[in-house]
């Protein structure tokens, strides 16, 4: 059975909510029913058939041939199966996903992987602000799974993150892991100002010193870290990184002491 493929006909004239197009919701539907699913969020109210040409039948492996910055909530609430998007996506890709995997071959808008609790979301291009973060009013951001941004992430990546692994490989903006509760954020390629702003617990792993460290982080030595080896080896084993991010010796900065202060920024000793 070939993969269920949505081929984009042309750039959609309005923002689309793609959250209905996940395996669990398409499993029991006939093709003509799928074509009638409403995706548009304005008075145009576009349906699947207006935007995409459908082919294939295997709903456990969904492909979007062509992407758009107007594709919102792609793969939201995904719990199993795979989604591949050959192009860009808009906001909230993989929002609250709990399993399965999503591959975005282009770039993603804000709130990619927002509140995800499991599975794997990989973005080959850049990601917007609040990657993995909560929506306004929510208490926690990402709470599990693996989120990979191969390009650059915007500001506040891993905001209020609670569990799981977020890896940004092309550097990230300011306030990475702001208000972090726990979990691991790995950043290759440099981070902007004040990473770990108001973080309580959790680990930020960086290959070089951030642009500016908050004064409420305190240096606490460089030691041969087994955890650094485990993290490095995990990143390589998962195909996230090609080479060790931290190395054997890491320098530790504890913070944010403006709050609980049990978090840490681990910097590769040769980069600090």
């Amino acid at each position, binding site marked *: 059975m070939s993969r269920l493929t949505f081929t984009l006909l042309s750039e959609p004239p309005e923002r689309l909510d793609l959250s209905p197009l996940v395996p669990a919701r398409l499993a029991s539907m006939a093709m003509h029913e799928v074509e009638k699913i409403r995706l548009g969020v304005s008075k145009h109210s576009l349906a699947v058939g207006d935007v995409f040409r459908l082919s294939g039948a295997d709903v456990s492996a969904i492909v979007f041939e062509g992407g758009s910055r107007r594709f919102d909530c792609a793969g939201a609430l995904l719990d199993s199966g795979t989604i591949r998007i050959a192009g860009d996506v808009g906001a909230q890709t993989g929002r609250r996903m709990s399993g399965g995997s999503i591959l975005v071959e282009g770039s993603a808008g804000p709130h990619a992987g927002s509140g995800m609790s499991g599975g794997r979301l990989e973005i080959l291009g850049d990601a917007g602000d609040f990657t993995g973060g909560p929506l306004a009013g929510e208490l926690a951001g990402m709470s599990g799974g693996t989120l990979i941004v191969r390009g650059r992430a915007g500001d506040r990546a891993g905001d209020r993150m609670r*569990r*799981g*692994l977020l890896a940004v490989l092309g550097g990230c903006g300011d306030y990475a892991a702001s208000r972090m509760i*726990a979990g*691991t954020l790995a950043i290759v390629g440099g981070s902007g100002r004040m990473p770990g702003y108001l973080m309580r*617990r959790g*680990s930020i792993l960086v290959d070089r010193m951030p642009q500016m460290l908050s004064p409420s982080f305190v240096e606490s030595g460089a*030691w*041969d*870290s*087994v*955890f650094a*080896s*485990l*993290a490095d*080896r*995990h990143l390589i*084993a*998962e195909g996230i990184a090609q080479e060790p991010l931290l190395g054997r010796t890491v320098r530790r900065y504890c913070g944010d002491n403006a709050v609980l202060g*049990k978090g*840490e920024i681990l910097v590769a000793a040769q980069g600090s």
Partner: protein
Amino acid sequence: MRGLTANGVAVDNTFAEAFGMRATAIIVTAPTRKWALEAVRSMIGFATSVIGCGCEAGIDMELAASETPDGRPGFRVMLFAVSSDELQKQLLKRVGQCVLTSPGSACFAALDATDRLKLGSALRYFGDGWQISKKLGGRHYWRVPVMDGEFVCEATTGLTKDAVGGGNLLLLAAGNDQALAAAEAAAAAMQAVPGIILPFPGGVVRSGSKIGSKYKGMIASTNDAYAPTLRAQVASALTADINAVLEIVIDGETSEAVAASMAAGLRAVIELGPERGALRVSAGNYGGKLGKFQYHLKDLLP
């Protein structure tokens, strides 16, 4: 009881009787092989027999740096006990007192099983609130701050209820030198089999025991039937040409591992021959009434 002869070594037509046990395994690593070995030797010390030590423990195998979770040299260590509770108790005491304390050490799960024993999830309290929980790829680690950095310890390790304790070979020789040569050859060959430990010093035990004693409160006493100096006084199992007997005891993760290890030991003793090593090979049993597992020597011959 006399059975076959192989390469001049007599092999008794008898069997080793072994018991079901609970077992677990961990990997201990350190910055160097020397310190990994220090930690491990300390941890498996005084763990020869459940009769007096609470558990039986030993090195299953050495692991190269490329084979351990953290890329440092290490050893896979196995612990065996008669109950899950006792195994849990012994594991925490030994890792807590001997591995946690050893410079640069780390400790990882080395047995895949649904039944789990606490490891780091109990030892973490040493961190007095500064311990850090980390989950990477489905594995849960605790980082406990210590004076040379951090003790990293996996939260739990597996427990198997299919383990076997008490597989054995008795090596009967003309003199002490030959008995020791046979025992060393057998122990080296048996230790090479994965998934087993030889809990006694160097893998060899000279004080084989029988159940019971003339003294009240002694649950085991000397195996007089195999003591050459008592040949004239008890119902001895020894013929006039035997003057020294040594035993190898095997604990294995599975019954298959015990059998494979015994077969390897038997092969090594037979290859060594009767002049340099053992004249006769036998095995200890209780008539087949007590143990769940029986390993017949004739089935294990090369």
